[in-house]
């Protein structure tokens, strides 16, 4: 029982990371119907840049805003190089290939800059576990969950309360109409990519103390976060948190009770099943095709 609770807690922490990356997918999908297939690499870069900064003696809490700035730039670059030209030439899967290509380039550059090895990431909180419901919970796991929720809440607040946010929401709803109303929609799309990469980079900094930091830390993360986005529905905010937690716990349980080798499987199988049965996701709204 104690083990089970413990698995559930670390599953929740992992699930929140999935939710944050899935949140990044939602942001760009809403503004431009595209998403960054290199989202996992954005997370990895965030973690490695954070690690370098901490290694240079930058305070952990000061490092976070710098990583955010880096994430924003990285996201904007992906959008400008990978997505915008594809939207312009109305290429069907051009942006899929180009964001994949950028992801591969980022990973390869990271391998050459930081080396292939996984490296430990210093934790800002004490390592000593807290006792909660009979299980040991690492303080970092709580920070991950809280940080993830805070981040998503901040973006939501921004969208609802500021005029800039309203422009983003308007573009979410109807890109053409927003453009006609004088909103610079292509800037909004760039912005959504920047925001999406910021959340991924932050997620990287948050998760790195629990896992390790290295160029291949995000190999399956992007894909599994997509599973979460699908399970939750690409349009539902609540859905991704629930979806993330379900997947995080399922993975931890599989890893412990069956084999760590299979721990990636439940997410992927869930993705296949949800898409085969209910493509709009468990929480998303089904749309009617128009002829």
């Amino acid at each position, binding site marked *: 029982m104690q083990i089970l609770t413990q698995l559930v807690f670390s599953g929740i922490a992992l699930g929140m990371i999935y939710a944050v990356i899935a949140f990044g997918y939602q942001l760009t999908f809403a503004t431009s119907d*595209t998403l960054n297939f290199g989202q996992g690499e954005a997370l990895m870069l965030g973690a490695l840049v954070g690690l370098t900064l901490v290694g240079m003696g930058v305070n952990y809490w000061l490092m976070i805003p710098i990583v955010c700035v880096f994430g924003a730039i990285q996201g904007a670059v992906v959008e400008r190089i990978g997505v915008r030209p594809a939207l312009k030439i109305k290429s069907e899967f051009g942006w*899929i*290939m180009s964001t994949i290509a950028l992801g591969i*380039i980022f*990973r*390869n550059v990271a391998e050459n800059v930081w080396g292939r090895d996984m490296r430990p990431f210093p934790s800002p909180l004490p390592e000593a576990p807290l006792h909660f419901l009979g299980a040991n919970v690492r303080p970092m796991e709580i920070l991950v969950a809280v940080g993830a929720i805070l981040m998503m809440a901040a973006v939501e607040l921004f969208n609802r309360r500021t005029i800039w946010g309203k422009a983003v929401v308007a573009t979410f709803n109807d890109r053409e109409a927003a453009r006609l109303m004088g909103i610079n929609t292509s800037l909004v799309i760039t912005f959504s990519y920047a925001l999406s990469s910021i959340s991924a980079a932050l997620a990287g900094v948050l998760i790195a103390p629990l896992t390790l930091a290295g160029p291949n830390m995000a190999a399956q993360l992007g894909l599994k976060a997509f599973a979460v986005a699908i399970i939750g529905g690409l349009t539902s905010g609540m859905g991704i948190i629930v979806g993330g937690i379900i997947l995080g716990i399922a993975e931890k349980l599989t890893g412990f009770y069956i084999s760590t080798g299979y721990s990636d499987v439940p997410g992927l199988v869930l993705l296949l099943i949800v*898409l085969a049965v209910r493509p709009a996701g468990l929480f998303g709204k089904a749309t009617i095709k128009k002829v």
Partner: protein
Amino acid sequence: MMKSRPLLLAAIGLVVLALFPVLVENPYYIHLVETISIYAILLFGLDIVVGYTGQVSLGHAGLFGIGAYSAGVVIMHFPDTPFVLVPIVAIAVTALFGAVLALPALRVTGPYLAMVTLAFGTIIQILINEMDFLTNGPMGITLSKPTVLGHEMSDREFFWVVAFLLVAALLVVNRILRSHLGRAFEALRGSPVASDCMGVSVYRYKVYAFVVSAGLAGLAGSLYSYSEQYISPNTYNFELTVLFLLAIIMGGRKTRSGALLGATIIVMLPKLLDDIVLFRYVAVIFAALVLVGAAIFVAKGRSTLQRVAVPVVGTIALAGISFVLSNITDWRLSIFGLITLLVVYYLQDGIVGFVRSTLGLHGHGRTDAEAAALLPSPVDAVSTSVAATATPATQDLVAADKVLMQFGGLKALNDVDLHVSRGTIHGLIGPNGSGKSTMMNVLTGIYVPTEGAIAFKGQSIVGKTSARIALAGIARTFQNVQLFGEMTALQNVLVGLHHTYRSNLLDVALHLPRYRREERAAMARAYALLKFVGLESLAGEEARNLPYGKQRLLEIARALALSPELLLLDEPAAGLTAPDIKELVVIIRKIREHGITLILIEHHMDVVMAVCDIVTVLDFGQKIAEGTPAAVQANPQVIKAYLGGELDASIAH
């Protein structure tokens, strides 16, 4: 003359391929060409999914792995299995997995499908790794070259086996793709809705495409395991699947030569990147080529300085970087990523497509159209499939009762009755948003009505798929044109004639008499149908290049190809010029003379008044009037619906 040149080229290619292992003794090069051939077989299949049906598959490395491991597992567990059986088992197993992969593909497209296929590929890799009792896990499987009649094949002999299978695969795939099956695949990409309404079930043909594609991947995989003589799970990874996609895009979609070229590039590329000196030479030559090409394009006015700036600077930078780096192997993936970016944006139609458009070459679409023009014209191009005897003349052809179509809170159709008598032209009019097109969509199975009954020839069609309804005898055109854009006018009509084929995969692959007969008949009839709507001179033109008015006529010809008993025309006159409209009226009357019943949605009242026998008026989803055109025109409620507000005395007169 026209035909002999490709034949000559093919003959030379065959001879070179056959003599290659004799002339080149070095086993390294033999193995290289063998690998290219194996990849090419897989790429033929991948192109069916990516190029023809327009679906992104990131799962083909997984399928390739299944093929390789099917062979490996069979050999490991049953060493006495005869060689011929091994590829067959691999094809069968992989095709089965292809069908599994097609299931989610039926529901989703685009990025969703890309992710699904990626997930599939990842699962396969994990399973191969973890199921050691079957696959020997990460240790991999070692095997030897196949043994036939107690004799173990040499490298050279196995090369010939691969070469033979490459040529066989090329021929079969080429035949499939140029047949009605290939047209069905292509139609899925052009417009899934229109495919269904032409009786080409999107479901069925997507599964076919994935199964055929997977079968080829299985064949390639089994050959690969023999060729490498060692297989391990990590070969079939994400990079390989992206490499396959890159090969298709770079070589050129929808051409076999593109797949061959793409296979050559992706096999040679890593070799090239292993050798820094060679890479420097190639990078410089490549940069020079792009620079010269760009200069020519700009000078001829075919491109602008701005557009060519990025590729020119990019390739020159690549050449520059190659001299700075001392070790290129570590940067292999980055260079591969850069090439992908360049190809995606600047070489969308691939090298083959680029060369074709630069040299002004055409595909087989145009030559087929020329050939079709020479065929004897059938007498009954426009006809209905079933003689009018199937139902008593007194019975309505269409009887829709109390049809309710609800979208959330909106009742797009509210208790609408629609009865259409055989042999009539039935007008369906009403203001925008009154539910006319919804009615069409309900009749053709695109929407399933919330409530109500619809009978066609006395049989209920509620809940039947669009494809089945189309085959039962209801054809349609679309308000916003739904042609198969990349296909020629003739091919568009041929998709409508899909139902006339009985040939199966075997007939097509071997060009058996049944297929040849059916293809000839369909070609002749398609051409005659184009003639019927006056488009025969544009038979070889891609549908997307036709002017709008001609596209509408082409839709009618395509719908007539179904030999329908009922033809639904959704605003056929929209966007037509006055002379075109006159021609359209003539065509509509001629269609009726052939015994086809029509339902006509139209905003041009003169057309409605000129051709319709009876007119039904819808407003806000309800039927507000029905009768002869003159009676409807005088109906105050109808006038009110169109003009709004209370009836004004000046309008009434």
